[in-house]
């Protein structure tokens, strides 16, 4: 693998809009590529995290992430700057992931579970996570399994909200719909997820087993 030299005139802390302008600048090929690489480096982990929810293994995840950035490269000149760059990027990622899912017609997707997984700390996650690590891993597996069974529209809103922590406004930008639509879709998605959780794993939902037993 070759090492990419950082262009001297593209400091890492430049705002997205400037990097996009540089990447689109046809007069300086080296600077243009360096600017685009910085955009990739800035968002690659977020894209990986998102597309990993749609893929079966690390290799497929990497291929899909690369496809996302290639689409971004091809369409960069169409970015108008009316929304945030990352919501535009997420829209491309969600579309690419859904294309992949429909292409291979997968009914059940598996969570990426291999030794390459990085498990970063997450304050919000720790706040809610159960104490026992094994329990947590099991809960994560079950959750991913059930999320993958949701219809595409519901799965995407759950991923964007619960995993990517996007606000309603950002989700509306990614999905190209109204905030009210986001809210209602999210509400239904959670209802559907809860129903699946209660049905398959009633022990994980306090009160669900009693309710079912009482019926």
């Amino acid at each position, binding site marked *: 693998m070759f090492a990419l030299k950082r262009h001297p005139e593209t400091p890492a802390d430049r705002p997205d809009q400037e990097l996009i302008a540089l990447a689109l600048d046809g007069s300086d090929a080296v600077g243009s590529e360096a600017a*685009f690489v910085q955009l990739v480096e800035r968002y690659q982990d977020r894209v990986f995290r998102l597309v990993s929810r749609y893929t079966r293994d690390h290799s497929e995840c990497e291929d899909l992430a690369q496809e996302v950035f290639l689409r971004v490269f091809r369409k960069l000149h169409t970015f108008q700057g009316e929304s945030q760059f990352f919501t535009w990027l997420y829209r491309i990622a969600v579309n690419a992931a859904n294309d992949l899912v429909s292409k291979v017609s997968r009914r059940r997707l598996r969570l990426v579970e291999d030794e390459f997984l990085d498990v970063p700390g997450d304050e919000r996650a720790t706040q809610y996570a159960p104490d026992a690590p094994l329990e947590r891993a099991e809960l994560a597996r079950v959750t991913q399994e059930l999320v993958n069974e949701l219809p595409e529209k519901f799965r995407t809103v759950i991923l964007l909200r619960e995993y990517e922590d996007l606000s309603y406004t950002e989700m509306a930008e990614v999905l190209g719909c109204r905030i009210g639509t986001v809210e209602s879709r999210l509400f239904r998605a959670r209802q559907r997820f809860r129903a699946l959780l209660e049905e398959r794993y009633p022990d994980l939902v306090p009160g669900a087993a009693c309710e079912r037993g009482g019926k």
Partner: protein
Amino acid sequence: MTLTHADQLQLQRYLDGELSAVGAAAFAARLQAEPELAAAAAAATPLREAFASARRTAPAAPRGFAASVAAATRQLPSRLALENLDAAAGIRRMCQRVLLAAAVVLVASLAVRAGWIATGFGAPLQASPDEVARELQELDSKIRKETTLGTGNERR
């Protein structure tokens, strides 16, 4: 009393941190005062725990990923060529739509001319003799009734 849909959506906004500071404070006060609302909020906890646990397992991009993307972009046409391709694709899409619309109009007009679609334009206003006779009989009987009623009133 069961929670209304509006209450449930407001609870969702509250738990997602989508309410303003004032709105959140007002809703927190409601949670204190309304046990049913508080129970609904508590019921959301297992879901939040489930999602939080799944959120932790996320892969990071491998080292050298950005460089491999850059290498792949070098295989693509130049920026100018990409923009031209995009513009050409836009024009092609527009032409396809125009052609499709023209084809629909052509087929519809041919269908009308061939008589597959009944329009009624220019058709003579004709009714069958039986129909006319029946209409006349009905009209006559109506008039007779009115006349009979009218003479009856005059005699009184």
